């Protein structure tokens, strides 16, 4: 039901080519949609659908699939290279691939999986999950808004035509920025809940929001969200403009969101007292979603290592 409405809205094709029924817009325009997806813990891979339709709509042989992703008729999971890597054998028409992805979001519900692989070079490949040599095993998700499955490929044939795009920094960046915006939205929802709670909940004859200790936790959370907002906006602008700082901006936005969106959710739980710890209250749905997205498209740790490597290289070439 929600999927159909989402499909009809056109949001899933915001970044896809107009030829495929998309809007041909950039990450800057996509951010507000992801913020809302995060605010409502949307049970649909909005960001990955936007990403998939963006990539697929630019590959001539995948336009039909792109159209289906935009309308919600098809779901395409997205995954990065698994860390032990894959085995790939080049054949007369494409490759035969073996490898295992431990936890791919929405894979059980998807017809295809868009993955970044290292073949002769780094590329994005569209794997037909309904073909032979694919084994999908649903796993218990930590983020209850997002089903996950193990995807095992065993000598799976990937035709040349399914090599969808060469990887460049821009694609991984795009996917990650959409994740950062989703995290920001979920964190905002957590703070909004905490502030509303603190205005209502009374203890010691007054609303608990009057106590300075809680006020200051809320203020720090609000600052973290402001920081996320400008970091994501700057990174989105830099990405769309192909600015010289786009890589740095992306590492900053994702690492900041990974750490601080989680912190905002944790602090919001704290401000709710015992109620925040209950299953029914539901704050944990946002917390789980943030934790998952924090580990997706690069952890804070990985982004910070990359950021420092860039900085050190720049200092090497700059005057002291």
């Amino acid at each position, binding site marked *: 039901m929600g999927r159909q409405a989402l499909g009809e809205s056109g949001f899933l094709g915001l970044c896809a080519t107009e030829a495929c029924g998309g809007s041909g817009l950039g990450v800057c325009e996509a951010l507000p949609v992801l913020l809302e997806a995060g605010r409502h813990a949307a049970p649909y891979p909005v960001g990955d659908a936007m990403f998939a339709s963006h990539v697929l709509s630019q590959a001539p042989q995948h336009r039909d699939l792109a159209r289906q992703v935009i309308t919600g008729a098809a779901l395409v999971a997205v995954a990065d290279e698994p860390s032990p890597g894959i085995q790939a054998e080049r054949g007369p028409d494409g490759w035969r691939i073996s490898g295992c992805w431990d936890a791919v979001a929405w894979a059980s519900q998807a017809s295809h999986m868009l993955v970044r692989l290292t073949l002769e070079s780094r590329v994005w490949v569209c794997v037909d999950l309904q073909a032979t040599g694919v084994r999908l095993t649903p796993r218990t998700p930590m983020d209850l808004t997002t089903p996950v499955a193990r995807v095992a490929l065993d000598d799976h044939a990937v035709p040349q035509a399914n090599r969808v795009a060469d990887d460049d920094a821009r694609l991984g960046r795009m996917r990650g920025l959409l994740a950062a915006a989703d995290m920001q939205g979920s964190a905002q929802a957590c703070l909004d809940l905490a502030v509303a709670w603190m205005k209502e909940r009374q203890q010691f004859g007054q609303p608990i929001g009057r106590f*300075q200790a809680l*006020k*200051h936790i809320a203020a*720090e959370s609000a600052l973290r969200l402001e920081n996320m907002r400008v970091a994501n*906006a700057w990174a989105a602008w830099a990405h769309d*403009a192909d600015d010289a700082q786009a890589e740095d901006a992306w590492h900053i936005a994702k690492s900041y969101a990974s750490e601080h969106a989680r912190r905002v959710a944790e602090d919001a739980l704290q401000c709710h007292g015992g109620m925040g710890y209950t299953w029914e209250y539901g704050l944990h749905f946002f917390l789980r979603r943030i934790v998952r997205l924090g580990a997706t498209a690069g952890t804070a740790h990985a*982004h910070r290592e990359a950021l420092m490597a860039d*900085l*050190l290289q720049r*200092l090497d070439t700059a005057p002291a």
Partner: protein
Amino acid sequence: MNFDLPPDLLSWQAEARAWIAAHLPKDWGGDFAGPRDPVEEAQLRQQWERDLYGAGLHVVHWPSAYGGQGLSYLHHLLLNEALGAVGAPEPLNIAGLELSGPLIMAAGSEAQKSRFLPPMASAREVWCQGFTEPEAGSDLAAIRTTARRDGDSWVIDGRKIWTSQAHVAQWCCLLARTDTAAARHKGLTVFAVPMDTPGVRVTPLAQINERSDFNEVLFDNVRIPLDHAIGPVDDGWRVANESVAKERAIARMYRQARFQHEFEHIVRVARQQALPGDPRRKVIEDSAFRQRMAGIYALLRIHRAHNLQTISRLEAGEDIGAESSYIKLLWSDMRQQIGALGIDVLGPDAIANDASSPGEAHLQDVYFLSRADTIFAGTAQIQRTVIAERLLGLPRG
């Protein structure tokens, strides 16, 4: 949000950078950030300010009638980024530029603006801010200094504290109580007090970093002309607070670049510094240090993005209100992280302060300076309360 910088402004900035590079004091940079002697330091800062003014590179966003260049806020940001990137000397007349000047521009008469603003802009006259008192810091409305009308004069009695640059200032922008019967926030007035008026006595106070930038100022039966009241009598609370939020966001806009300059210097020291306990490795090779540095660097770039956003909003005619508290909270905590990083990078070399090894003395300086950042111009605790009450709407305590 637009982060694009127009090419013509970037060319203007490039010219400013070239002027700055050509005119920086000899040996400036690295571990050298100016003379340690306070008199020499004040002289250097004032001369630098005058030179900047002479080159058309000072208070560029002020109207030209008042000594500025009538340029945009974006010019102001880009100039300050050029200054901060090389850790250029800070203006001596900071209290003038970020408080007294904007206050007079907003509330002063035309005669007062013409009299006070041009010499302030050119650093001919230095100002200090006479607001805080021993019994009135965060609670500014508790001030006790009085201004009593007596014939053709105001007579001022009281005591101000933490008054930066009072020892070199020609003028004091003073907040005093003109109606002792009125409620706390009412009955206050702002005055321009010449520091050489009989009865004004300045006593320097020593800071933890061995500097003495701030003072106690006694006002003992100090007579000033009636027309030295700035803005309406008894309306001083509004006059004093009017520009505060905006100036909090745009004053000393060289900070972000300056702190990044300090940070990058610490990173360079970390590349040379042996890791305590493992002298075969350098501090920079340690992952925990790198992670910490990356976190700080992210905050520095986020601060810059905030500055660009602030400028965009001002250029679009919006006003900056309580949200400037976010920026103060961000950079003050970040600067303390930078200070502490410097100490930790030095390791055992932090124990001596005689500049025998790279970074020594300079990095300790940054650390001690940073301890004031969360206190002056509104403590971090006050900023958090402002955010919580005025921006999140949590009930007042």
